[in-house]
């Protein structure tokens, strides 16, 4: 139902025309502020035609080459009342209209047709931030496309309050929001929680999501009752490209290179002989494995010059049947070669310095990784009428990784004796080849129904699937020893090094796969009414039920070298001449503690009230989440716990207040309660021995879920539709936070520390100077506090207390984070350039078991550059992206000793894009 606005100014201007056919041209602006509105949806019907477009950077639209006749033009823009105008167009005439949309306020009184806001361009994103009921930061597809970033992880690290946690070798990447570890956040696609392809956690790696599929990324830092409550840090919602309002066709391709491979070669191995299934899967559990059942070519490493990195994306969208049916398909393919060179030195207490850390091992690591991402999204929506709409979205993300690792480790302390002088000692050389395939699919069917002028009903059904398969993880370890010999018999005289041959130590082969399936249903029912005097109210109730089922299977084989007649193990020359016996011929499938089923059933319901007036929007209510969570080991474990079932219910109140101080300023104050559930594998009490130190990692079945109270205040200023300034503070208190700690000094396990506090300041801004220059950025200061269980030593007094508590920041919490991007845009020449600088402060990389010390990741500065230039006909754009211009290394220190340093090198690409 379209209402004619009360205040409309329009001018009808007839100009002389030079062409044969007529044209309608218009400019849309806001009524109060007289500001151009970018991205408004304009629909033109009449004379047997249906046309639509979106207003451009200047708030203007144009329908060209249309025949004379009578047309209805309607305009929609979120936050504004819809507008409709009738235009009679004479032959060879141009009609120019000026439209002012009235800011909405009282319009919540009645249900409207679905507003259309193009969030994929930057001003749309800013409008959404402004009008959102809660505290949210949004980055648009336009900003992503123009940025140096190629996947969701790259994009997110530039957002206010976020950093990205990566596991060595630059592979999996997870968000840390406001200093809170990935376990305290959740990740959504199109507003729906997605399953994780990881075998142990519930996190979704963000580096598998190609940025070209993204419509926008929204990070919600406060929750409303209708949002899922397991987001103490926040919610990352990756919104995929939606069906456009007019035909859209886009193709892009780019080629690039990782500069680290100008300095060294890429280590690779053959994948042709890798068996996808383990021996017990292929031949049954009674099969007796033979030495020849294990391939050799995936442990035959070759040094090659890798090919270029390539990215190709194709996207097409349109609307059919008088705009009723929308369709969008996007496919993105990325083939990346990257590598890292690092040193990784383990620390151990120095007994000559009262246990202060000293380096116990010195290791050089070289990783070479090829990552292939292939993502497809398909979206269909159908509007039966203005009041009923259904849509179907399918997202499929495939990632294939092949990684070769070379680790050369010299022990300085411990083991079978350390080094005597630099360059000596036992040296182990470890070669690993890993291939993995991850598949993530999310099918969502949803509908929205306006039942009457006051009632609305919407529902969502989701099937979400994630799986990972790691066939034949192969690890070969060799060892040798380097000693000194004195060259002239004088034990204080000159010496030279002698080295023993490399011995074949052992080979480990692991087949692992896991699968996670979620089935979810959601329904919401809302009632809206006017309260008189430009006030309105919405009452909403809804619920969610989700059943999750996941399993993990692992089968491991240990190959030991055959020995000579005297029982001595053999020297290693190459993998093809190595001979081995299968030590456990039946595999570990029948008794492996990594074989488990986990489940999680979540039932949630909420009641929410939304009040809106010209000066205040308030949303508040209560959400109740009931969790049934647990696991069962597949194999009977006589010595420990075989399964756990946990049940808990949380009542999560929240209130979001938004004071609209004036048309361009909001002041928000928010409280919400949230939770974090233990990761599935955190509960499984399986122990795994560390290969490198005398420690074990173990799950904790008695782990409790974390609860928190969160408080936020944010000031928002929107000077223009493309500019913003945010300044906020927050405070969080977590009860039973889950942190890893060393129990009794050697057992590394997740435990509940009594509490943690986390507070910080966030600033974010976007500002343009004149026609060409802009600057966008954010600054975050974070401070958190929790306690670790540490061992305290006083060696002189022979005193130890293994349960000493030490205060420290949360793992991964950085102190200062600064992002600044300098933008150059020249609309006339279609030229855009961005230089992005990032500073990330110090954070705890890993907790050290001894009181007084932790591993700290050192501050980093990064610089990235991107630019694009539209070619003459506006359809073609050439672009380039440059990352890590400063060749930044990722360093960790403990007690001022450098323990690790990783370099990944510069990465660059050039590409071309076509848009219709």
């Amino acid at each position, binding site marked *: 139902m379209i209402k004619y606005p009360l205040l409309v100014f329009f001018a009808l201007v007839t100009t002389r025309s030079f062409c044969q056919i007529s044209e309608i041209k218009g400019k849309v602006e806001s009524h109060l502020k007289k500001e151009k509105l970018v991205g408004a949806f304009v629909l033109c019907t009449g004379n047997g035609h249906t046309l639509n477009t979106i207003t451009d950077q200047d708030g203007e639209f144009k329908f060209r080459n249309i025949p004379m006749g009578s047309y209805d033009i309607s305009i929609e823009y979120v936050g504004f009342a819809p507008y409709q105008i009738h235009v009679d167009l004479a032959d060879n005439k141009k009609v120019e209209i000026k439209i002012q949309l009235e800011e909405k306020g009282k319009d919540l009184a009645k249900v409207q047709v679905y507003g259309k806001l193009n969030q994929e361009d930057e001003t749309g994103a800013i409008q959404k931030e402004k009008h959102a009921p809660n505290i949210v930061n949004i980055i648009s597809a336009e900003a992503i496309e123009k940025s140096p970033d190629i996947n969701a992880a790259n994009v997110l690290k530039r957002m206010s309050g976020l950093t990205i946690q990566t596991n060595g070798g630059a592979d999996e990447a997870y968000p840390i929001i406001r200093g809170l570890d990935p376990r305290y956040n959740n990740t959504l696609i199109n507003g729906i929680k997605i399953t994780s392809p990881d075998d142990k956690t519930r996190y979704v790696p963000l580096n598998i999501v190609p940025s070209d599929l993204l419509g926008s990324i929204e990070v919600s830092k406060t929750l409303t009752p209708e949002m899922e409550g397991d987001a103490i840090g926040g919610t990352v919602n990756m919104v995929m490209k939606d069906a456009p309002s007019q035909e859209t066709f886009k193709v892009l391709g780019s080629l690039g290179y990782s500069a680290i491979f100008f300095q060294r070669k890429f280590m690779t191995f053959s994948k042709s002989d890798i068996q996808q299934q383990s021996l017990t899967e292929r031949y049954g559990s009674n099969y007796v494995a033979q030495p020849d059942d294990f391939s050799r070519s995936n442990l035959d490493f070759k040094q090659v010059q890798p090919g270029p990195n390539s990215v190709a994306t194709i996207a097409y969208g349109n609307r059919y049947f008088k705009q009723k049916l929308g369709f969008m398909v996007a496919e993105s393919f990325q083939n990346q070669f990257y590598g890292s060179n690092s040193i990784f030195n383990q620390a*151990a*207490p120095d*007994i000559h310095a009262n*246990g202060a850390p000293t380096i*116990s091992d010195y290791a050089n690591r070289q990783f070479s990784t090829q990552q292939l991402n292939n993502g497809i999204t398909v979206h269909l929506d159908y509007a039966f009428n203005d009041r009923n709409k259904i849509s179907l979205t399918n997202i499929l993300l495939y990632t294939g990784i092949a990684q070769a690792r070379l680790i050369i480790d010299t022990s300085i*302390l*411990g*083991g*079978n*004796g*350390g080094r005597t002088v630099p360059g*000596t000692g*036992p040296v182990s050389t470890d070669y690993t080849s890993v291939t993995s395939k991850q598949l993530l699919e999310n099918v969502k069917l949803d509908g929205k129904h306006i039942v009457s002028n006051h009632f609305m009903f919407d529902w969502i059904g989701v099937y979400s699937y994630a799986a990972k398969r790691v066939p034949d993880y192969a690890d070969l370890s060799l*060892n*040798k*020893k380097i*000693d*000194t010999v004195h060259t002239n018999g004088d034990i204080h005289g000159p010496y030279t090094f002698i080295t*023993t*041959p490399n*011995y074949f*130590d052992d080979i480990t082969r692991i087949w692992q796969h896991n699968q996670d399936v979620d089935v979810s249903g959601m329904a919401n029912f809302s009632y809206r009414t006017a309260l008189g005097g430009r006030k309105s109210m919405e009452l909403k109730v809804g619920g969610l039920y989700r059943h999750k089922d996941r399993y993990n299977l692992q089968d*491991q*084989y*240990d190959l*030991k*070298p055959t*020995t*000579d007649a*005297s*029982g*001595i*193990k*053999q*020297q*290693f020359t190459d993998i093809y001449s190595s001979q081995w016996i299968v*030590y*456990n011929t039946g*595999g*570990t499938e029948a008794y*492996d503690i990594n074989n488990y089923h986990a489940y999680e059933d979540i039932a949630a319901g909420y009641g929410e009230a939304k009040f809106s007036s010209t000066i205040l929007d308030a949303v508040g209510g209560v959400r109740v989440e009931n969790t049934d969570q647990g696991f069962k080991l597949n194999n009977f474990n*006589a*010595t420990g716990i075989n399964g756990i079932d946990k049940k808990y219910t949380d009542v999560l109140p929240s209130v979001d207040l938004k004071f609209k101080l004036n048309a361009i300023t909001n002041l928000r104050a928010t409280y919400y309660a949230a939770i974090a559930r233990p990761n599935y594998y955190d509960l499984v009490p399986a122990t*795994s*021995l560390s290969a490198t*130190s*005398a*420690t074990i990692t173990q799950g904790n079945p008695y782990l409790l879920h974390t609860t928190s109270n969160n408080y936020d205040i944010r000031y928002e200023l929107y000077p223009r539709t493309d500019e913003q300034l945010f300044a906020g503070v927050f405070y969080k208190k977590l009860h039973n936070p889950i942190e890893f700690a*060393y129990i*009794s*000094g*050697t057992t590394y396990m997740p435990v509940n520390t009594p509490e943690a506090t986390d507070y910080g300041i966030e600033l974010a801004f976007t500002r343009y100077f004149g026609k060409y220059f802009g600057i966008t950025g954010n600054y975050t200061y974070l401070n958190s506090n929790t306690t670790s269980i540490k*061992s305290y*030593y006083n*060696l002189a007094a*022979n*005193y*130890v207390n293994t349960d000493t508590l030490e205060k420290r920041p949360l793992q991964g919490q950085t102190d200062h984070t600064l992002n600044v991007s300098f933008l150059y845009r020249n609309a006339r020449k279609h030229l855009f350039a961005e230089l992005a600088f990032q500073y990330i402060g110090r954070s705890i990389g890993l907790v050290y*078991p*001894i009181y007084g010390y932790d591993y700290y990741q050192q501050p980093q500065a990064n610089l990235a550059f991107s630019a694009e230039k539209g070619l003459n006909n506006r359809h073609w754009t050439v672009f380039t992206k440059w990352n890590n211009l400063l060749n930044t290394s990722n360093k960790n220190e403990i007690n001022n000793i450098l323990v690790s340093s990783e370099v990944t090198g510069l990465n660059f690409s050039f590409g071309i894009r076509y848009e219709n």
Partner: protein
Amino acid sequence: MKTRKLYTIIAFMATVIASCTKSGNETTNVVTPTVPASNPITPGNISGFVKGTLTTGSTYTITGDLTVKKGDTLASQQGVTVVVTGDAQINIQGVLLLVGTSASPISFNSDSKQPGSWGGFQCDSAQAVTIKWAHIDNTGGPDPTGSPRKTVYVNAPISVDIEDSWFTNGQDDLIRLSNGAKISVLRNTILCSGSTDGEAINLKTGVTGDVAYNVIYSQAGTGVKLETNDLVPIPQTNVNVYNNDMVSCGWRRGQAEPGRGVSLGVNARGNIYNNIMVNDYEGLEVFVDADTANTKYGNNLFYASQDTYQDTTGGGNLTISIRGNFYPSDGVGKPQLTDLISTAVGNMDPMFKSFDGKVATPNGASTSNDYHLLTGSPAIGKGNANYNADIGAYTSDGKGNQH
């Protein structure tokens, strides 16, 4: 408190060791207790949770992993035969009490009698472990991650008595004791264990006690290894290692990780006296990271029955000087004046009753050496008297190894 009661029982048992000792004209006759047949376990197949007593003369077949729960005891009378099938292991969370006698020992072996064919005693969180006069053979089959298992593994601050027993053909560490265990490892014979890795007696993380009168032959790695955990510097591992014979140890791991007769590393301390080391890859190694200030050693006899060993693995031909490795050059241990160090074949030969002179032999090989000392052995009377007047596992006072 149940635990305290158990400790009392064990302390009592320790004082009534099956031997006669003479001091002047006083004779003490120690009587070995007979394990009472309370809760007798019916002979035949057993698996799952068990408690009670394996009764004398009976044969049992373990068909699946056996678990003794916390507070429960698995005891064995003398002369019990246990056959383990299917790579099963015995998990002890309570008390293990195997008491055989010299005349009628207990036997644990697999049905296949192949090296590495069952799992051994996994006593990680046990309350007490006592093994006396028992044959424990062919242990070390793969664990849930495919790695070889230790034969007796204790990871708790409890009393561990392993005495007068025979262990053969294990795969990894034979006896691994850690985490504050208080140990008496006395008069055992450990033969041909460790496939291509593993120590015979591996002591870590705050273990204290005595390792004495043991014979260790052809271990893949080190005979007796002392270490404190590299992340947990105290409590220190502090063990007296005396009057042991370590013969032909440390070869199967290869030159890159040679095994030693005895090694001390990472903040461990000990008293290393009166041991005989023959034909070991390396003899006594005190690493630079050991607690060198508090470690004492001496009166050890080092001998090589041949000058060199020709290591021909992998087509190579490397000459290893056995005598050159008595105190290896990468350690900080130095020859002591009280040591008996051979300078040539024939010099300081300990004069075992029979010795085939083999250097490296395979895991699971048969051996029939007899390490009693012949009259005239230089080891006799040269020991540190705080431990024993003689050097070696077989001493003239009869306190030594009884096998």
